[in-house]
């Protein structure tokens, strides 16, 4: 018991099996893990919102938030407190139960997917064999929060936003599925930890580059290099569309729909939508890092090994988030028909061709 307390939380759970009589202890440790993840994610959201605004401001040569706390560090906390203490306004004609349920769904689904994300060796709440499928399944549920919220408001702008969001997210999920399929083919596993472990040793082993001919695919790795690099870029753009980030923020396009699906939301329910959006952005950044950028492995295999895996994971995820923020600052919003055209006529066919190429290479080189 004492030695369990002294151990790091993720190693301690491995030491206690669930089917033993001490399943209560196991449950307690699992709950502690979940609590740890939630607290860290919540703090990171606060930091990311500020980072997002600061980067945006820097691109436009403004200062950004700089009043609350040093360099505006406490700005997000102040905003969150303001939202908490405001009154919740429920529109008279709304479906009250679904109106309150919608932000809850959005927030819970955003957090649920983190259950299978490995942030360092063994640092994962649940290391299941079909982790990729789990993430796909849960992230496809996030759209319900937006759709129900838009419909339950009983107002036309939220409804338009909800419809756009549903169509957009369903469209881009299809191409995300195909993109992930190529990664599954080359790594031969649906377990996120194993996918990361096949990319160990340096950036030339990462799925995005694959420049190392000494793996079991041999020289065929060089055939895969451009294909998988393209898949990585496509995954990033699809992630933008999936999280309703600019330039694909049609569901909340403020110049057309006021604020889209969240027009009628105020106070804590609005905060929940906002929170869910940033947790989702972090999730897709983390998925990009896991699938294409080597997870917690260092970019070179000499000299930097003393740094822990979680540091590299955080650094890479933060870099992807930086790209998210830069795209928001630089690229103008797409028109809705352009968005649909890009999803169905560009991303989908090219990712299907990529799946054909990758599966062909994997079959002909005999690697499994």
């Amino acid at each position, binding site marked *: 018991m004492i030695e369990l307390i002294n151990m790091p939380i993720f190693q301690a759970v491995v030491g206690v099996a669930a089917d033993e009589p001490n399943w209560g202890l196991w449950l307690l440790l699992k709950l502690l893990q979940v609590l740890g993840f939630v607290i860290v994610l919540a703090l990171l959201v606060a930091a990311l919102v500020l980072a997002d605004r600061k980067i945006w401001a820097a691109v436009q040569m403004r200062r950004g938030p700089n009043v609350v706390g040093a360099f505006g560090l406490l700005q997000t906390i102040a905003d969150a407190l303001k939202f908490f203490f405001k009154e919740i306004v429920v529109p008279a004609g709304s479906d009250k139960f679904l109106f309150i349920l919608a932000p809850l769904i959005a927030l819970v689904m955003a957090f649920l997917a983190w259950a299978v994300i490995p942030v360092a060796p063994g640092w994962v709440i649940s290391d299941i*064999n*079909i982790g990729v*499928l789990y993430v796909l399944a849960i992230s496809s549920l996030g759209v*319900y929060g937006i*759709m129900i919220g838009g*419909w339950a408001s009983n107002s036309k702008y939220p409804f338009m936003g909800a419809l756009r969001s*549903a*169509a957009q997210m369903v469209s881009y999920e299809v191409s995300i599925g195909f993109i992930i399929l190529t990664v599954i083919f080359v790594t031969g596993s649906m377990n996120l930890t194993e996918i990361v472990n096949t990319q160990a040793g340096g950036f030339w082993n990462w799925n995005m580059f694959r420049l190392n001919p000494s793996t079991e695919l041999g020289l065929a790795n060089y055939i895969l290099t451009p294909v998988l690099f393209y898949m990585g870029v496509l995954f990033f753009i699809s992630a933008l569309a999936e999280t309703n980030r600019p330039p694909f923020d049609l569901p909340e396009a403020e110049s057309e729909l006021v604020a889209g699906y969240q027009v009628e939301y105020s106070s804590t329910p609005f905060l929940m939508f906002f929170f869910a959006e940033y947790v989702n952005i972090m999730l897709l950044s983390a998925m990009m890092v896991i699938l294409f950028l080597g997870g917690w492995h260092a970019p070179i295999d000499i000299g930097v090994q003393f740094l822990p895996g979680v540091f590299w994971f955080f650094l890479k995820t933060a870099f992807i988030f930086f790209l998210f923020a830069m795209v928001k600052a630089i690229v103008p919003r797409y028109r809705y028909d352009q968005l649909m055209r890009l999803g169905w006529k560009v991303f989908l066919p090219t990712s299907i061709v990529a799946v054909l190429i990758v599966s062909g290479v994997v079959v002909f080189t005999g690697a499994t």
Partner: protein
Amino acid sequence: MIAAIAFYILATVAIAAAFMVVASRNPVHSVMFLILTFFSAAGLFILMGAEFLALLLVMVYVGAVAVLFLFVVMMLDVDFVELKKGFLSYAPIGAIIAGILLIEMIFLGAAYFSEGGRPLVPADPTMSNLEAFGAVLYTKYAGAFEAAGFILLVAMIGAIVLTLRDREGVRRQDANAQMARTREEGVELVDIEPGQGLG
């Protein structure tokens, strides 16, 4: 013990939600209950150790099919009170179908349990769910699998053919032509003297 409790909770929720799909007045609530039913069914699959099927159910039915249901139901501008007026006249037919299904289920259960019940044994315990599926789906049942895919393709093309109509005088956008535009043919810069206008 815990598995049994979980089974009864999930099964109860599934049946209650399935009932509410039919009983609730608001069609959007019906779809929400349908989603709850799917979720409970996925939970039952997980209890049986079929986690791949469970996630597939969530992904395909909850993540895609039910979204489209919700989409259509929200868009429909039908007075559902009006629609439900003749609701009870369908009751006899519904009762007959339900009765037939019930009798079939009873016979199925009786046939199954009269031999002591067949325990579910995995064909190869070293294989994960996913590998087991892949190993039979693309070898033993490859024909049936491809036939299913082909039927879906035909249905898709059929839906497109049915809704595609050629109208006269429609101005379509040509994305390539739009993107091939240059600054010279799109914008004309005119230097206008103050107070004169283009005239």
